[in-house]
């Protein structure tokens, strides 16, 4: 199987992002909506990389986004007077990645030894635990959070700071989304993906076959965590120019990630993107028509999907398209 053919499913994904990007740029007033849509697609993809492929639910996932946001905030607020200019942003992203890797190593060292329900129980408090560590030990300014809009102005100038938080932060979210899609495809087409599929179907059988399941779990866990960290750094810290522990460790975002992955289809490439678009668009619409009731509407939908359509939208489409030309492009 040639590389071009192997990676063919990436084409519709990249085409979709390119189209969204073009719409956002060309249609006036739609940029923020498009940025929202892409944020949810990226969130779903990053979450799917671990949950979808392994079948392990990480209820504390938002903690990785939170520490990523802190990575960016700490970098900008402490180094803004060093004259680093635009290098501050890549540096902040590197810090976000490092923070999320460290947290994922700490959590993974315990949680990844556990299986199924025990894994979920171990992760359920990660976000709360980390939030209370920051507040309790008064780390990084404690519960007062980090507000660094002044530092942004100091580092990039008034115009530059506004442009970064209203435009370039969203472009970076696009970049994270594309990166997440590429990583998912690379894993799906490589030994990692096969190993994880085997693990999801039957962990004991996979072990007996000589697959080092722990190693592949760690790889997927860390990749997923880093993507979350980058997403937190771009979509929260850089865009809002403030970080509060109570906001960035809110379990709500884990719930949204779960909904998106389930809506689209777990373990597929296209699933989280379709799920993200459906979720973000309907959330936007519901927020206008029935404000405050979004979760009450989405929670029964999750139940319905779990019971009646466990394979999600893309899973169903994939089954319909079997042995047609489209099969090659849907993964």
């Amino acid at each position: 199987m040639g590389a071009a053919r192997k990676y063919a499913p990436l084409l519709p994904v990249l085409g979709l992002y390119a189209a969204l990007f073009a719409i956002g740029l060309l249609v006036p007033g739609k940029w923020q909506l498009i940025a929202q849509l892409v944020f949810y697609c990226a969130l779903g993809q990053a979450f799917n990389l671990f949950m979808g492929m392994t079948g392990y639910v990480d209820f504390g996932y938002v903690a990785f986004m939170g520490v990523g946001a802190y990575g960016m905030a700490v970098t900008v607020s402490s180094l803004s007077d060093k004259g680093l200019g635009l290098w501050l942003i890549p540096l902040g992203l590197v810090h976000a990645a490092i923070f999320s890797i460290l947290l994922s190593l700490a959590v993974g060292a315990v949680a990844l030894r556990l299986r199924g329900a025990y894994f979920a129980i171990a992760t359920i408090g990660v976000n709360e635990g980390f939030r209370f560590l920051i507040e309790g030990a008064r780390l990084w300014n404690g519960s007062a959070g980090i507000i660094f809009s002044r530092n942004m102005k100091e580092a990039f100038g008034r115009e530059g700071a506004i442009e970064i938080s209203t435009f370039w932060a969203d472009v970076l979210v696009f970049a994270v989304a594309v990166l997440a899609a590429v990583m998912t495809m690379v894993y799906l087409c490589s030994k990692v993906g096969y190993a994880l599929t085997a693990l999801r179907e039957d962990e004991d059988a996979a072990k007996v076959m000589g697959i080092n399941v722990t190693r592949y779990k760690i790889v997927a866990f860390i990749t997923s965590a880093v993507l979350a960290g980058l997403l937190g750094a771009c979509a929260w810290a850089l865009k809002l120019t403030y970080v509060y522990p109570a906001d960035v460790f809110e379990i709500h975002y884990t719930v949204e990630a779960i909904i998106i992955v389930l809506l689209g289809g777990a373990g597929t490439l296209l699933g989280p993107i379709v799920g993200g678009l459906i979720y973000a668009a309907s959330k936007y619409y519901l927020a206008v028509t029935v404000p405050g009731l979004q979760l009450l509407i989405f929670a029964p939908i999750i139940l319905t999907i779990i019971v009646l359509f466990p394979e999600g939208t893309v899973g169903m489409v994939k089954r319909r398209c079997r042995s047609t030309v489209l099969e090659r492009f849907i993964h």
Partner: protein
Amino acid sequence: MFLEQLSGNLFQGLILGAVYGMATMGLSLIFGVLRVVNVGHGAFMMVGAYCSLWAFHGLGVAPILALPLAMLVGMGLGLIFYYTVIRRLIKAPELATLLATFAFGVILEETIKLIATSESRGFNWDIGKIDFGFTILPYTKLIAFAGSVLIALLLYWWFNKTRAGMAMRCVVEDDQGARVCGINVEWEYALSFSLGLGLTVASGVLLTMFIPVGIQPYMGGGYTLKAFVIAVLGGLTSPYGAFFGGLVFGLLENGSYSLFAQIPGLEPFAMTRFFSFVMLLVILLFRPTGLLRAR
């Protein structure tokens, strides 16, 4: 001074720990029988807290009398949830039941929010207090303590002395074997699920004796985490283990609060929450079978 404070806190911790323990028995019962982790645990406790609030404000009766009502509400919710969703997912991967219980918790929270708004409410049930010298305990907390112990004893009696209880224990041990012995395993599943949720909702009533204000739709999250720590302390499958786990947890939580308060520059309350999370990881790592049971 410090010692007096510590002993007072530990005593209060033991009283609260009994309620924690009773609150976790339902979680352990459900996991033991069905191997389903109820991730929406805290939301069910929240429903109990509202039962107590409404009994006090709406009916004007002592909140403790809401206990049977809450038990019935919980069992009803349990039966509905079991027959519509859980029954179809028993054979499915664990992922499915984790997400389903989670989603059901969200439905409860959002429904209560719709009915009662998200503002924090509470009630003041003052029936005097008792002075022990080193600490002062309101009678309401004493009632909650007695209620928890009584319910735990009742459950113990039910599991050990009645046929229905012994049948349920059979299913925990070996559901194939139970089937061979002529036990209706399907029905035991449904019964234990609704009994577990009934206990959980009832524990929410007892919990309101400790939180005079602070009854709100999202109050359950913290208790879900605590319940998991306690259940894991007790070995996750045993309701009695959970009860003793609750006592241990209450002591540790209040004891650590006293210690954190001694260290300057720390927020003791937040550190206690962090401590319970660390405890969860440490126990899962070193004693995944619980404290009571040998490896």
